[in-house]
């Protein structure tokens, strides 16, 4: 039986008068027709802006009931036109999970969040309680009950988001890039939850860039390009496509092991190193979250900082930049030692949410703000190097995500600092944009600066990094060069093992206490 039917649907978002033309057409859909059968697991894939997210919004009713725009055609849920239903009606049939774990919670504690849907539908209190405990048991969420959402990791948040959707027991689940902010272990764990939904015979529609964790789950793949369905495959057909073809379609690999064929980066740097000694950090009244006796990474070239969520990667980056006043320790290059305050002027961090670091009213001003002595000529050169010159007068916040990130990198370059850090620069990016960021990191490293990249993305590391620092429990577990194939294999093993470990344990408490001794040999 078909649960969803799209009949010649077109949708475009209103043009909001932004100066850069790129966004106008992005996400629009053109004459989409398809039916989705009851109980199928459908993967929506395609490059950014192809309309994946817009498709999910058709199914969960946000189009036409939330997003305004030009909408033609009809979408039917169980034979009913979504136009004639309210979001409230649709919410009983369709459960939604979104990309950003930070913004999809209405409540501040997990139990209330699970109860939120049933409460909105006015179910009696004892029924709501029963639903909550039922869902918690089914999706193995019990250890997360009665917690503050501000204390959860990204992976835990996404699981609660799923649980919250499941609490009203909808037939259809619509997920929009739920893995964007998760590490490999959390992703593997999240997969277990998805397979639980599949086992219940639910219809699942998931839009994703990272495909590897979904293989074996999806029954059908819809490939979108420029707002049209360009390919409609069964799982066998899709997996049977030659790998090269998926790549030309702009899709990420189905299997991480295939990455071992990627070539390493050329040797960079002049043999000098940065040395970090006795680095430690603790929040007030809490045990140390970071304790590094000694860490060395090459000066010049790009170094990846890997490790599980909670390993202390971000804390490390913040300490290095001198942002944490409570951090002790020394940072040295060949000639001198830098104090915490000096490090504020030594390092430049491109933050995960670049919106936090763009202050001015035009792209050019943003670059000038970073310069010690304002030099428009030089600023324009830098912008040109980042393909941003046409946007020099635009408001930085009005640009697309990738462009904003490049503005931040450009201002980092303009600041003329030797160390440039990137905090999770590729979360939620498709193949094309991920490679573009890799290109930017390469550009920074080739210019003789030292790039440090905090990331979960193995392909991205292989495309731009020379060296790896692996943190676990606030300590350096190991560090190695990936210029040679031995090191690259070692790196991939770390990510592959992670996936296997989560699948084996099948236990959601494990997310917090990730096994440290993952054998990497």
């Amino acid at each position, binding site marked *: 039986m078909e649960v969803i039917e799209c009949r010649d649907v077109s949708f475009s978002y209103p043009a909001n008068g932004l100066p850069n033309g790129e966004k106008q057409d992005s996400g629009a859909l053109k004459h989409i027709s398809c039916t989705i059968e009851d109980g199928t697991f459908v993967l929506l894939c395609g490059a950014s802006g192809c309309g994946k997210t817009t498709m999910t919004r058709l199914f969960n009713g946000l189009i036409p009931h939330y997003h305004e725009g030009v909408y033609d055609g009809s979408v039917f849920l169980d034979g009913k036109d979504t136009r004639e239903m309210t979001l409230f009606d649709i919410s009983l049939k369709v459960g939604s999970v979104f990309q950003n774990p930070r913004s999809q919670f209405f409540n501040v504690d997990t139990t209330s969040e699970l109860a939120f849907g049933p409460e909105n539908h006015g179910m009696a209190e004892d029924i709501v309680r029963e639903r909550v405990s039922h869902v918690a048991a089914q999706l193995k969420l019990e250890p997360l009950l009665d917690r503050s959402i501000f204390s959860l990791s990204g992976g835990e948040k996404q699981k609660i988001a799923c649980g919250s959707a499941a609490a009203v027991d909808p037939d259809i689940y619509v997920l929009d890039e739920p893995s964007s902010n998760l590490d490999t272990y959390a992703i593997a764990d999240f997969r277990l939850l998805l397979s639980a939904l599949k086992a219940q015979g639910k219809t699942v529609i998931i839009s994703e860039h990272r495909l590897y964790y979904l293989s074996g789950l999806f029954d059908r793949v819809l490939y979108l390009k420029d707002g049209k369905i360009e390919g409609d495959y069964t799982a066998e057909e899709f997996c049977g496509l030659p790998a090269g073809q998926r790549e030309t379609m702009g899709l990420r690999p189905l299997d991480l092991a295939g990455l071992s064929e990627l070539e390493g980066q050329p040797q960079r740097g002049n043999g000098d190193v940065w040395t970090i000694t006795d680095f430690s950090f603790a929040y007030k009244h809490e045990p140390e979250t970071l304790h590094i006796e000694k860490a060395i990474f090459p000066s010049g070239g790009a170094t990846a900082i890997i490790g599980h969520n909670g390993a202390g990667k971000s804390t490390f980056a913040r300490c290095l930049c001198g942002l944490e006043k409570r951090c002790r320790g020394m940072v040295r290059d060949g000639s001198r030692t830098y104090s915490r305050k000096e490090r504020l002027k030594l390092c430049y961090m491109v933050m995960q949410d670049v919106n936090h670091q763009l202050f001015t009213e035009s792209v050019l001003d943003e670059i000038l703000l970073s310069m010690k002595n304002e030099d428009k000529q030089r600023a324009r050169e830098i912008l040109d190097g980042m393909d941003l010159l046409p946007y020099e007068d635009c408001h930085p*916040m009005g640009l697309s995500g990738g462009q904003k990130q490049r503005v931040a990198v450009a201002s980092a370059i303009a600041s003329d600092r030797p160390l440039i850090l990137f905090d999770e620069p590729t979360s939620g990016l498709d193949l094309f944009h991920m490679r573009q960021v890799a290109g930017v990191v390469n550009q920074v490293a080739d210019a003789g600066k030292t790039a440090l990249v905090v990331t979960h993305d193995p392909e991205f590391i292989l495309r731009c990094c020379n060296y790896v620092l692996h943190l676990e429990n606030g300590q350096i577990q190991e560090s190695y060069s990936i210029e040679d194939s031995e090191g690259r294999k070692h790196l991939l093993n770390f990510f592959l093992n992670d996936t296997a470990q989560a699948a084996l344990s099948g236990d959601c408490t494990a997310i917090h206490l990730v096994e440290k001794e993952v054998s990497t040999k």
Partner: protein
Amino acid sequence: MNNKLQGKDLINIGIFTAIYFIVIFAAASIGFIPIFIPLISVIVPLVGGIPMMLFFSKIKKFGMLTICGVLLGIIMLLTGMGYWCIPTGLIFGLISDFMLKSCDYKNAKRGVLTHGVFSMWVIGAFIPIVVTRDAYYQSLLPGYGQEYADTLMAYMPDWILPVLLVASFVSGLVGGLIGRKIFKKHFERAGIV
């Protein structure tokens, strides 16, 4: 269009009230030094204009500012500033709602004026200090005598409340203008409107 407040509108009220309160709270921290307290009536409207002018651009229905005012009153109660901001928030919110409605939510100049009026809710925070000061001075009487209490009254005369009210209105207008400027300079061009 449906004129009843929908889920989306209610959520917007919550979000902007939170932003507004954090902004004014940060700015009003100066009032923790007690003698600067009267300055709050000037500072709050001045900085509050930036979030409020953005909020106004999202308002298309009646009642959103009234609810915002009441919520502000409730937080003020929770932060120990008494309950007087609940009625003042309600009254000035309601007037502001009428003002925006009368121009069909389109007139930017009216927005600035509305912000001036809305800002007067802060007077609720001064009512306990000013209106009940008689009682306080009376309580000092046994120990210090009438003459002393009279001298004190002169320091904080009866007309202080209207003066503060006017001050908050005027700086609300200035804050509205600043907010309008920032709105054009940033929010419009950043495409979040």
